[in-house]
């Protein structure tokens, strides 16, 4: 008798906690999806707005789906209208950014790899201090170097040029690339290097034949990090270049701010998507490496 009561009450209890659990799960998903819509909302608005005509934009709301997909504003954002003064469009600046990003990423990554290699595998007295010395460069606010940099680029005759921006981005990327490679190479056993040295391998041979082939993951992390940082930079781009040498973020900002007679929000949004799409693609394709770079290099100057 008493046993059956306890079993049924236990069942009741179980039932209760099951309902509670299901409610909790619903609540969890509700909150998670609510936030997901907050994060998706601007992207949705950008895409939808870029596909509408101005007429439709004025009549509908942010969320209205376009009556028909209209890619005109994309064409205008990328290639202009082909007439009129002040016909600015992104195509040349997109290539400026490519021409700036590729060498800057290459040089900063290479220097960082070599520096990280020396700091971990050819240790000497005071190497910790050298690392700290370089690491500090990750944290400075760039405003503290903006004025002398502007003058230096002027003296070197490369202000307002893509070359100038390549130099700037290479230099201020070094602390990060060094940090990435140093932390990666620290975990590679020194015995590997010792054995190679006994076999007669020299400084460069060890680097190119032994370390570099196993560095793929950290190279990916570093290249993605540098690519994203340099592609998205606005401070250096807007301070050290204007007019034709400007990178895409500067051009985007100029396009959006330029107040011609009628504001074309659809062209603005198409431009913003074009400026954002390269880094977005990298993020979607290599999210894991992107996040790894982010969590180890986040404190950027």
């Amino acid at each position, binding site marked *: 008798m008493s046993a059956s009561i306890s079993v049924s009450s236990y069942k009741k209890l179980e039932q209760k906690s099951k309902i509670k659990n299901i409610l909790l799960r619903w609540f*969890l998903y509700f909150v*998670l999806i609510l*936030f*997901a819509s907050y*994060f*998706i909302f*601007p*992207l949705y*608005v950008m895409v939808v*707005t870029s596909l509408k005509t101005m007429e439709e934009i*004025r009549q509908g709301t*942010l*969320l209205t789906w376009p009556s028909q997909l209209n890619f005109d504003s994309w064409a205008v954002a990328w290639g202009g209208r082909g007439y009129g003064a002040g016909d600015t469009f992104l195509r040349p600046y997109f290539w400026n950014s490519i021409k700036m990003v590729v060498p800057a990423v290459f040089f900063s990554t290479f220097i960082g790899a070599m*520096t990280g290699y*020396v700091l971990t595998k050819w240790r000497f007295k005071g190497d910790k201090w*050298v690392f700290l*010395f*370089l*690491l*500090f*460069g990750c*944290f*400075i*606010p760039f*405003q*503290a*170097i*903006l*004025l*002398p*940099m502007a*003058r230096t680029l002027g003296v070197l005759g490369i202000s307002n040029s893509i070359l100038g921006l390549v130099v700037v981005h290479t230099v201020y990327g070094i*602390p990060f690339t*060094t940090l990435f490679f140093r932390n990666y190479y620290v975990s590679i056993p020194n015995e590997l290097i010792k054995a190679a040295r006994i076999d007669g391998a020299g*400084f460069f041979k060890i680097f190119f034949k032994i370390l570099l082939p196993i560095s793929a993951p950290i190279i990916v992390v570093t290249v993605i990090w540098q690519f*994203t940082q340099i*592609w*998205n*930079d*606005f*401070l250096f781009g807007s301070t050290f270049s204007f007019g034709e040498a400007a990178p895409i973020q500067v051009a*985007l*900002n100029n396009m959006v*701010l330029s107040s011609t007679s009628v504001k074309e*929000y659809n062209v*603005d949004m198409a431009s*913003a998507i074009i*400026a*954002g799409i390269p*880094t*977005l693609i*990298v*993020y*979607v394709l290599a999210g894991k490496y992107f*996040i790894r770079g*982010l969590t180890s290099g*986040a*404190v*950027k*100057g």
Partner: protein
Amino acid sequence: MFKWLEKNLPKVVLTPAVGLIGWFVYGFILWTLYISFTNSKILPKYELWGVGQYTKLWASRKWLIAVDNLLIFTSLFLIICIVIGIILAIFLDQKIRAEGVLRTIYLYPMALSFIVTGTAWKWILNPTLGIQKLFIDMGFENFTFDWLVNREMAIYTIVIAGVWQSAGFVMALFLAGLRSIEDEIVKAAKIDGANLFTVYWKILIPMMRPVFFTSFVVLVHISIKSYDLIVALTQGGPGISTTMPALYMTQTAFHKSQVALSAASAMMMFMAVAAVIIPYLYSELRREHVS
């Protein structure tokens, strides 16, 4: 000669990095510091002028507005990002279906530039055609949302866009932190009768102290440097109501040609960052030593 080179090759390879950073970071900061003690206008003058620029800076209404805005922005940005980040991380940690997709959605704004973010939000917050119209068309006829053009409220639009960009990143930091904790601890606590809420509130969140610290440093750092977002969203306006130190610095140097005054403001920013970063570096290095 050859022997010397062979022996010192590692140090030779180190020279480009050390030389470049020595010159372009340390040398340049010292130059900026020096210039801030001169009376340079358009071109740098090297005659010392004392601390006049700093007194001028702290007497400037625009600079005080900038500092005020920085305090408002930093505190809101920090609190909201951390609260959203923790909630999302804990919720995602409950064996959620489609976790990968949700994570990707929360974090993608970090891949965009602040200029793209600012451009998008500027359109969304547009006082005639943006959110306001959305609500009016939904039937809330008296709904007004004009923060972007409202002197008192414009600074909060920067908070909205900034949080949107960075909250997912804080989520990623906390999620990584939660995942690094042994399941055993949670299991043991549950066996002892603790419910899920207690497990998080009493055990896991207190264990996240290093993650709080990192988030704090990263977010404060981002907010002190805030520049692009303000340029894209408000250009410091309406009037000068959303000026922040970084914007003050470039405007003073390149539009007003007050190089020394600008250098003084840059040094103030530098010191603010140093005050946050030096304790952080110190603790990080100590942790590395211990482990």
